[in-house]
């Protein structure tokens, strides 16, 4: 077992884990952060996407021990602490960017990552960027609209209160 310490949604977490434990397993099983989902075994569906040090990554394709000393933000840490939805979450709601909700956490995080890198992506860029996130419900129509809507209305903004704190530290 290896002892690791990381920050998850702004809170410091220390855990003793097997090296083979995946980050997504740490989040779901040990920390009960079940908003991060597992939809495949081949690192393709993107339902497990989280922020690690501010970049979107697939938590199913990363070991928990690799997150030692890092800042992880899951979907549970995206909204403000007072419950106000992040602009991207609000945009997904406004544009019907979700149906069953299973791919949604990964989809929201990937979309925020895109707008962090590019303020006003084209429709084509949005669609290409989301290649690593599979949705079976929406035909991506509402999702792409949501990203456009968010970009047009002031962008992705900061991610949760947790990461805000992290970025001031940095």
């Amino acid at each position, binding site marked *: 077992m290896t002892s690791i310490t990381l920050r998850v949604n702004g809170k410091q977490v220390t855990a003793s884990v097997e090296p*083979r434990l*995946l980050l997504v397993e740490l989040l779901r099983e040990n920390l009960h952060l079940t908003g991060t989902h597992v939809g495949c075994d081949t*690192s*393709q569906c993107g339902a497990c996407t989280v922020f690690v040090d501010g970049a*979107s990554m*697939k938590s199913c*394709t*990363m*070991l928990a021990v*690799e997150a030692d000393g890092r800042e992880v933000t899951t979907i549970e840490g995206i909204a403000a602490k007072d419950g106000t939805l992040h602009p991207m979450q609000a945009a997904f709601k406004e544009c019907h960017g979700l149906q069953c909700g299973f791919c949604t956490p990964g989809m929201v995080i990937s979309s925020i990552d895109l707008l962090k890198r590019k303020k006003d992506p084209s429709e084509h860029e949005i669609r290409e960027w989301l290649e690593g996130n599979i949705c079976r419900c929406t035909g991506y129509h509402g999702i792409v609209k949501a990203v456009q809507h968010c970009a047009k209305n002031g962008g992705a903004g900061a991610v949760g209160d947790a990461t805000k704190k992290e970025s001031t530290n940095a």
Partner: protein
Amino acid sequence: MENFVFHTPKTVADAVSTRKGTSGGKFLAGGQSLIPVLKLDLAQPTDLVSLAGLKKELSYIKVEGDELVIGALTTHADVAGSDVVKKIIPSLAVLASGIGDAQVRNRGTIGGSVAHADPAADYPAAILALDATIKTDRRTIKADDFFKAMFETALEDGELITEVRFKKPEKAGYLKFNNPASKYAIVGVYVAKYGPNVRVGVTGAATVAFRLPDFEAALAKSFDPKVLDGIKVSEEDLVNERDAKADYRAQMVTVFAKRAVEAAH
């Protein structure tokens, strides 16, 4: 996934000696190829030697003379977004921006990708076409000597890539054709012009990346897509799978080589 011992060395020397001390260890860079392999139990390393502690040492992009030098732990996203890369070898930024998906690019590294030598990965085409040199903890290896077979390179057991050096071409272009499901390249063609010489690197089409001397000779005479029309790509060594049969791949090599020439800048 089988269990393993996890190591976190802080220097290249540390990493190499740690790896040497294991019976069946592997280096772990971004893990975007290795972890999926482990999840499917296709490999059972005794030890994983994480290179995360070497990030400061091995993550960089710089220009030295006529070479673009990229540290082994530089992520695909960093290469794709680098102003230096876009200025010196813009087609390499294009290549990096098309590797895997956004999440893979945020974590996967050039060193990891090159060492893994997936026959459908993008970088091998660039290594060959841009006459790259692969620098390791103990030596430098020329592009043409590097890729041996599927998932097999010139690297010795425990040898660690530290840097990849690409020669700045006069102009170059990379275009690929993805498998629609896996998004790995069915065919990716990198064309680079160096004065009177042209190098063409192909990935995806065969079990190992390769150069196309016929194409190179024709393009050296005239850097024009039309000159490739009459040259037949042999199907013999190409991958022949249901998704893309060898004859189709052969034709796509030509199509994408032509498009890479057109796109070259």
